[in-house]
C-alpha cells in the first residue's frame, strides 16, 4: 500500500457503503439489526469502505452504490455542478468515488465524477483568483478536501506573487512554532 500512512486516504476509507452479506460471520457485532453477535447471510449492513472492500475481494459481500452518488446528486450536478454541496456528501467525494467504481461496476459513477470535477475545477480557480474572501466563504463550505486544497494553492500562489512584486521581509519565524506569544512585559 503505497499510501499506507496517508491521512486523507485513511479518512476516505472510513466512508460507509451499503453491502449485502453472501456469507454469514460469527462472533462480530457489526449488524445493528441482528440480535445475536453474528451476521446472517443476506443481511444488509452499512460498513466502512476499508472493511467492505476486503470482504468484497473475498466474495463475502456485494457492494451497492453509496447514497452520495445517487440520482439526486446526479441531477443536481447536471443542473449546476458548481453549486452542489459535495462536502456534505463526502469530504472525499472524488477519492471515495474512484475507490467505489471498481467495486460496484457502475460506469455512470465514473462519468459523474469526471464531469463534476471538470466543471468545478474551472469554477474554483476562477473564484480563487478573482473573488474577495468574504464573497467566497459561502462557496468554500461546498468544497471537498481536494477542492479546498486546490483553492488554497491558487490563493497562496497569488499571495506569493503579490509579495514578490511588492517586496517585503523574506525571512520569517518558523510557522511550526505557532503564533507569536505576547511579549513578556
Amino acid at each position, binding site marked *: 500500500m503505497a499510501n499506507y500512512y496517508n491521512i*486523507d486516504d*485513511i479518512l476516505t476509507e472510513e466512508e460507509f457503503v451499503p453491502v449485502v452479506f453472501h456469507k454469514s460471520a460469527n*462472533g462480530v457485532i457489526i449488524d445493528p439489526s441482528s440480535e445475536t453477535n453474528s451476521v446472517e447471510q443476506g443481511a444488509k449492513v452499512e460498513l*466502512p469502505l476499508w*472493511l467492505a472492500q476486503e470482504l468484497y475481494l473475498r466474495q463475502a459481500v456485494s457492494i451497492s452504490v453509496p447514497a452520495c452518488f445517487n440520482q439526486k446528486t446526479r441531477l443536481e450536478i447536471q443542473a449546476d455542478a458548481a453549486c452542489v454541496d459535495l462536502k456534505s456528501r463526502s469530504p472525499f467525494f472524488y477519492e471515495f468515488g474512484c475507490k467505489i467504481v471498481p467495486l460496484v461496476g457502475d460506469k455512470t459513477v465514473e462519468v459523474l465524477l469526471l464531469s463534476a470535477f471538470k466543471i468545478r475545477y474551472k469554477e474554483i480557480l476562477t473564484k480563487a483568483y478573482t473573488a474577495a474572501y468574504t464573497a467566497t466563504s459561502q462557496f468554500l463550505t461546498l468544497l471537498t478536501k481536494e477542492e479546498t486544497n486546490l483553492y488554497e494553492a491558487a490563493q497562496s500562489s497569488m499571495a506569493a506573487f503579490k509579495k514578490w512584486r511588492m517586496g517585503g521581509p523574506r*525571512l520569517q519565524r*518558523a510557522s511550526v*512554532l505557532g503564533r507569536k506569544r505576547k511579549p513578556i512585559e
Partner: protein
Amino acid sequence: MHGRKAYELVKEFASGEKGHLKIFNNELFERVIEECNEHHNALQSLIRKMQEEGLEVLTARTADHYGALIHHLSLIRNKRCLMAYVYNRADIIRDLAWKVGLLHELPREIQEKFSDSEEQYFKDHSKSLKSYMSQLSLNVNVDMVPPKDPYIKVRVLEDLGSGIILSDKSANFARHSMHFLKRTDAEQYIARGLMEELTS
C-alpha cells in the same frame, strides 16, 4: 462499529492546523491498542473453535472463518490508524528538528505536546542531522530562503544580551535594538522569533 475509535484518533490529527502538533492523545491511543488486543482475543477464540471442530483453519470458509477475518481486518485497520497517527506526528517533529532543533531547545509549549518517545525521537533525529552535516562540514539548515542581500536589517524582539558572538561581530542585542547583520547569522534567530527582518 469496528475501527471507530481509531478513526477518531486520525480525525483528531487531521483537524489540527497544518504543521502543528496537538497534545499526544494518550487516552484514546491506549483505548485503540486495547481494542486491537480484544480483536486478537476474539480472533483466536474463533480459530480455536474451528480447530476443535476439526476444521482446516486455512481453507475452511465457515461463518467462524468470516468472523475471524473481520477481526483480523479490524486489527490491521486499527494498526494503520495508530501507525499513521504516530508517523505523521513524527513528520512534524522532523520538521521542527530541521528548523529549530539543531542548535536549541524547543519552547516549552511545544515540548508539552510530545509523548516521551517523541521527545526522544526529536533528539535522535536532530543528532542524525547534525552528524550528517558534520561529515559534510556544511550546514544545510541555513539559507532556507533564496538569498538576495548578504546583509539584512533586523530588530531584536527579545532581550538576547551581549553574549552572542556572530561570525563577524558581537554586539549588545538588547530588545528593540536594530542591527545590520549577515543574513546567515540572523536566519536562526528570525526562525525562532527572537528577531524580525526589517525592510526599508
